[in-house]
């Protein structure tokens, strides 16, 4: 770990906005501003903006870039059209998950992959190590991008008002000029709401942040980012994904195309055919309480994410449980600091627009 914690280009903005700053993956990040519940609601009902500049970027360029990424990423990279985006996993030979990633195709032979902050150095080394046989250059771009996520039902119109042209649609990524700045606009996010992620030059980020706030976007911290993503059952690396777990048990078989021969494909194929011993399920607490990561599930398994859902008003979470206990409706008992509390396996996502 670095001795000094890193600050994003927006650090002063966070302090000025009254954020509570916490260490996160080597960075000093805003965990909340006005309050988690209000920030969460702003994203579900209007528009919020997150500083996600701690996330890393790796660019793969060259005639062999596609073949290289096809080798290291679990999904079928050949399906990403120019301007497209795709979710995939980076796996070890044994199928253990090194990271989960979005890859954007910036040009015919140019791809940008966004890494989790805590994994960036590890990912970069892994990618470089596996690129030797390919006509492809791997470049660390983490220092060259700030990243803002603008999310919520009003996110697109808020960003559109700054843009020279119509914004790219869902799961696409194209350059645009926003308020005289060059920005890569990506139709992706981590909240279950419509919205975009904006990759900008670090120097341009503060003005962009100010402009989004001026147009009504609420600043949203890491705490609400977690409640938002957990309500829609998006995985958090380090909680729900880790090297000791594979994609199949994590419910991410849809992001693995074994026929592409990616690193780990044989292990994933074997796990898919045999069926995993444990599966990651979503659950709801049925008689109050909040399960937390690390709480054991009685009869086997462990909670990997748990919080109070601001949208649903109940404790929610995800847990690895024996496959026999993974069907929606199955009752669970979770040992919450010595007290057994009942929960029930729930279909994913836990929250959708139609739920309330």
């Amino acid at each position: 770990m670095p001795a000094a914690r890193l600050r994003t280009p927006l650090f002063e903005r966070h302090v000025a906005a009254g954020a509570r700053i916490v260490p996160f993956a080597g960075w000093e990040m805003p965990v909340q501003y006005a309050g988690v519940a209000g920030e969460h609601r702003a994203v579900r009902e209007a528009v919020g903006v997150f500083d996600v500049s701690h996330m890393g970027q790796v660019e793969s360029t060259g005639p062999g870039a596609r073949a290289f990424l096809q080798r290291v990423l679990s999904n079928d990279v050949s399906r990403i059209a120019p301007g497209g985006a795709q979710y995939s996993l980076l796996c070890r030979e044994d199928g253990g998950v090194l990271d989960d990633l979005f890859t954007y195709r910036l040009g015919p032979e140019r791809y940008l992959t966004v890494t989790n902050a805590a994994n960036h150095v590890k990912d970069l080394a892994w990618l470089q190590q596996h690129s030797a046989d390919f006509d492809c250059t791997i470049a660390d771009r983490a220092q060259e991008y700030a990243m803002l996520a603008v999310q919520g039902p009003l996110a697109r119109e808020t960003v559109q008002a700054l843009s020279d042209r119509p914004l790219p649609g869902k799961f696409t990524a194209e350059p645009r000029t926003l308020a005289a700045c060059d920005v890569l606009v990506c139709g992706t996010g981590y909240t279950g709401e419509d919205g975009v992620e904006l990759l900008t030059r670090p120097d341009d980020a503060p003005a962009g942040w100010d402009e989004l706030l001026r147009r009504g976007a609420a600043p949203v911290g890491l705490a609400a980012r977690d409640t938002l993503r957990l309500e829609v059952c998006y995985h958090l690396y380090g909680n729900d994904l880790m090297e000791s777990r594979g994609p199949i048990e994590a419910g991410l078989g849809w992001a693995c195309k074994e026929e592409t021969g990616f690193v780990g494909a044989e292990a994933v194929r074997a796990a898919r055919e045999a069926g995993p011993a444990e599966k990651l399920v979503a659950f709801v607490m049925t008689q109050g309480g909040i399960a937390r990561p690390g709480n054991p599930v009685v009869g086997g398994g462990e909670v990997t994410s748990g919080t109070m859902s601001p949208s649903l008003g109940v404790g929610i979470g995800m847990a690895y449980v024996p496959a026999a206990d993974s069907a929606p409706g199955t009752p669970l008992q979770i040992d919450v600091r010595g007290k057994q509390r009942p929960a029930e396996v729930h279909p994913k996502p836990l929250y959708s627009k139609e739920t309330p």
Partner: protein
Amino acid sequence: MADASYPEELLYHAEHDWARLDGDVATLGITWYAQDALGELVFFDPPEVGTTVTKDEPYAEVESVKAVSDVIAPLSGEIVEVNAGLADNPETINEDAYGEGWLVKVRMSDPSERDGLLSQAEYVATLG
């Protein structure tokens, strides 16, 4: 409560609890500092009426979105009442930590324990 406040008429425990004494019954709660540090509270798990609490020992849990925290008893005694309204509205602790956000009432088993508690000025001094 946006601004810090520590009423003068209360007694305090260094683990960020307050006590309001009325005869041999003490009403207990957490301080402005504690609720601010925890953030918006989303769950209060109260002890049962009739159980006993021991000075300096945890007797309940409060949870914010991100964290769970023990509540430490400033005094020993028997729980005679819990604030049932917090089950549905735990945020009341944030909104009115010294009023509607009280946690429990305790019949003190050793009223002399009050002498070990802090005055408002002494408690505020511990906050640096």
